[in-house]
């Protein structure tokens, strides 16, 4: 169903400029196109006929054949972003869902107005998805780009592009179609209704399709404040429409970055320094020079690349080079990172993030629980290794890539090559997973440097080994947690933690303790990581959720209280109470279980969604941990697509459990020690638990859903391990305490 333009070079997305688009619209013989323009300091919604000033970035196109095409300015990395936005637009348009198609928008100049984007976001007080933190200077449409609201981990697309843009564009287009019919038939617009891509006049029985009216409708100026439907009238939003990108994803035709083929293209395999910051001082290529099919060897110091007719030939040639790597930070070890954290936490001045009352006084009288907790570096390990295809000429560059932020990627390429941004054309591709890794630019600028050197179209492919050892990792973090309880109440809480600057804004308050505690001392010490770190699905909530929910269980234990009752006793927020109470019922909390099997519980609110989970795990005498069941109760406000939302939650559970059971990136001698999947193991189907997901029905504004189910599942598991065995997991992964997944 997804429209697939296939121009030369294999991109899915046509190269449009405004002019060619408008001309194309003319060639198609009419129709209605409605979208957004960025005129100097204003954001305006206009139709094609009014779009002479500034460019029209189309959101919806209605063609005479009665097809509705929703154009979504974002990347698709697995959440059904385009489908969700199309649902919001089609709902207000009163379109027949069967006639709706989606199309990925081109990456054009017109979306890059950072002041406008920023102002729009701040003005709406929106919730920015964590994946997008490095990109806040970017226009809202592109922020919507990487991840989409309900289904994808940040609500910006739904709340901005969707809630304010797509919805309104749909409603405005509907009004224009009704207006066209009213004039054509000489009747009052109020007596006309739109339904299923048809416009009907009940009095006379006349009707016309949207397609028949679209050309005439295009002449009107869209109403910026069209009437929006009441949610009770929804027939598309809130329904589990099948994702429009999936047909291509079951027959091998979906084109990921890895699959792009460009005429004249060669493949490049790359070697990055085995030791952090080492430099390639010399490369001996005598073993490969003259080898059939092998092209050039490029040494840029921090990377060595070889080109060939196939990726395999390039990789084999790379392996046959003699590269002299010099220098590098050979003293870097995980132990050193840990030691630095210990020292900094003990000696460096702390920055207070949240405090209230006299914590020391509380600790003096209550039962005190103290815990040092630590989490390791984690790799994203997207299924599709990093890759980027680029063609650099004297005039500019073309880039084929699946990126979470195409426009910033374009600017990064332009800067790297000393080009004007307009000289770089981007061709968006599907992303084989993002999780934050594909929001960064290191791998794109690297391709630009290699492409700039070669001046020949080249696909730069990272092997899994390069991908895993050169990530932007979730940082290793240490925290010292103290809590005190008296008469069943938490009387004081201290959280002193390392902040390694993953890029998450403080305004998300991942450090905040999410239960009612009158006396708090929450403070951080900033300690930049010696290796690059970045946004990893749910970012700082991943470690904070673990620290807080582990301490919460330890305090419940100290109070002699049931873990669920203890949490409820410290929760006044009605939405969180509802989620916890529902979880108790859905998971049958406290049910009788055989010896060695136990439930554990945790709740974390992140990105305006509340997720509470119960993990049921069976622990063998050999320390083998079998996760049997996970129950998730979620309040993420209004759901746009329940089925896609369910997929995000179950997938997040696997993502979180994988990290708890196996996830650890370590450093020794300046090198990352995990190079491929056997060293950095993933949960597989055989270990995957039975899952139950319950959404609290809600009319609240949509929150994120791609990330919030990740943080609680780890402490829910480790709390279950404690209840089964009496062993507290204070360091991750669980292997640190002699357990392992089975």
């Amino acid at each position, binding site marked *: 169903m997804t429209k697939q333009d296939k121009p030369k070079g294999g991109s899915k997305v046509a190269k449009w400029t405004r002019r060619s688009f408008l001309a194309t619209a003319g060639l198609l013989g009419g129709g209605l196109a409605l979208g957004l323009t960025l005129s100097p300091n204003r954001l305006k919604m206009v139709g094609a006929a009014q779009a002479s000033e500034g460019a029209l970035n189309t959101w919806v196109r209605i063609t005479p054949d009665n097809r509705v095409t929703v154009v979504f300015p974002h990347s698709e990395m697995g959440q059904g972003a385009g489908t969700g936005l199309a649902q919001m637009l089609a709902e207000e348009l009163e379109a027949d869902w069967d006639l709706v198609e989606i199309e990925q928008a081109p990456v054009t100049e017109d979306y890059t107005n950072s002041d406008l984007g920023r102002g729009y976001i701040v003005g709406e007080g929106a919730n920015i998805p964590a994946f997008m933190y490095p990109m806040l200077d970017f226009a809202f449409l592109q922020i919507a780009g990487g991840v989409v609201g309900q289904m994808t981990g940040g609500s910006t697309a739904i709340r901005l592009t969707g809630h304010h843009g797509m919805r309104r564009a749909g409603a405005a287009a509907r009004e224009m179609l009704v207006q066209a019919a009213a004039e054509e038939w000489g009747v009052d617009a109020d007596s006309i209704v739109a339904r299923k891509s048809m416009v009907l006049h009940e009095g006379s029985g006349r009707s016309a399709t949207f397609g028949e009216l679209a050309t005439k409708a295009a002449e009107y100026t869209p109403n910026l404040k069209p009437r929006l439907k009441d949610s009770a009238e929804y027939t598309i939003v809130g329904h589990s429409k099948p994702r429009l990108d999936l047909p291509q*994803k*079951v027959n091998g035709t979906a084109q*990921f970055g*890895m699959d792009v083929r460009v005429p004249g293209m060669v493949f490049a395999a790359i070697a990055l320094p085995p030791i952090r910051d080492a430099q390639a001082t010399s490369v001996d290529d005598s073993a490969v020079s003259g080898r059939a099919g092998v092209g050039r060897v490029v040494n840029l110091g921090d990377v060595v690349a070889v080109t060939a*007719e196939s990726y395999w030939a390039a990789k084999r040639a790379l392996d046959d080079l003699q590269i002299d790597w010099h220098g590098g930070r050979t003293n870097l070890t995980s132990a050193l990172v840990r030691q630095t954290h210990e020292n900094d936490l003990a000696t460096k001045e702390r920055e207070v993030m949240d405090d209230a009352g006299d914590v020391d006084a509380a600790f003096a009288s209550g039962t005190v629980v103290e815990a040092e907790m630590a989490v390791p570096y984690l790799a994203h390990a997207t299924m599709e290794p990093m890759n980027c295809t680029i063609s650099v000429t004297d005039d500019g560059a073309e880039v084929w890539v699946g990126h979470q932020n195409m426009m910033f990627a374009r600017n990064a390429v332009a800067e790297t090559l000393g080009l004007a941004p307009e000289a770089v054309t981007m061709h968006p591709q599907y992303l084989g997973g993002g999780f934050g890794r594909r929001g960064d630019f290191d791998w794109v600028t690297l391709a630009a440097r290699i492409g700039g050197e070669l001046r020949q179209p080249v696909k730069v492919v990272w092997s899994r080994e390069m991908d895993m050892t050169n990530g932007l990792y979730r940082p290793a973090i240490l925290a010292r947690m103290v809590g005190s309880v008296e008469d069943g109440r938490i009387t004081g809480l201290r959280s002193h933690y390392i902040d390694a600057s993953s890029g998450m804004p403080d305004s998300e308050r991942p450090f905040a303790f999410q239960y009612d505690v009158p006396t708090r001392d929450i403070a951080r010490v900033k300690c930049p990581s010696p290796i690059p770190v970045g946004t990893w699905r749910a970012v700082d909530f991943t470690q904070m959720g673990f620290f807080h929910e582990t301490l919460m269980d330890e305090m419940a234990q100290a109070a002699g209280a049931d873990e669920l009752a203890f949490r409820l006793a410290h929760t006044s927020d009605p939405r969180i109470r509802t989620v916890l109470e529902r979880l108790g019922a859905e998971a049958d909390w406290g049910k009788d279980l055989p010896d060695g099997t136990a439930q554990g519980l945790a709740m974390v609110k992140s990105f305006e969604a509340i997720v509470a989970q119960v993990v049921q795990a069976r622990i063998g005498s050999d320390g083998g941990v079998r996760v049997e069941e996970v129950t998730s109760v979620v309040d993420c406000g209004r759901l746009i697509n329940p089925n896609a939302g369910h997929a995000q939650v179950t997938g997040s559970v696997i993502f979180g459990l994988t990290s708890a059971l196996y996830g650890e990136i370590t450093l020794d001698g300046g090198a990352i020690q995990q190079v491929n999947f056997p060293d950095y193991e993933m949960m597989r189907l055989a270990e995957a638990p039975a899952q139950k997901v319950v959404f609290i029905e809600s009319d609240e504004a949509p929150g994120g859903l791609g990330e919030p189910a990740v943080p609680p599942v780890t402490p829910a598991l480790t709390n279950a391990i404690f209840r089964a065995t009496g062993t507290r997991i204070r360091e991750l992964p669980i292997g640190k305490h002699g357990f392992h997944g089975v």
Partner: protein
Amino acid sequence: MTTTFTLNGAGVTAEVDPDMPLLWVVRDHLGLTGTKFGCGIAACGACTMHVDGVATRTCVLPVSAVEGARVTTIEGVSNGENLSPVQQAWLDHQVPQCGYCQSGMIMAAEALLAENPKPTDDDIDAAITNICRCGTYDRVRAAIHSVAKQKGEAL
């Protein structure tokens, strides 16, 4: 060196290094990119094709090993526009998220069901060892069971 085999029903002759893994011959020389590269060491299953009907990780399989063999990729699973029952079940259950692992997943499931039309959960556990980083495992399992059930009903 040339290697001759059948690819999705058509005879092909690849003039490549006999050591080149089948994955790269198919992707880079024969131009079928539905089969994916994930790890290159037979650890993830993204590169799964059928070689004489057997689900095989092709990133470590030298092309010379398929001389005369029948190779099927994800592109050869559907019958023209008609999806295979497994592909249809994948859509019915909305299995893919990013989709990158799913060619390999589907190939593994097709092979399992061809050999064992009514797999138990344990059979599925043993046969489907592919990695899905997006975590679609519950839907993969449900989709496989639904194909088995339909087949049962059709008999």
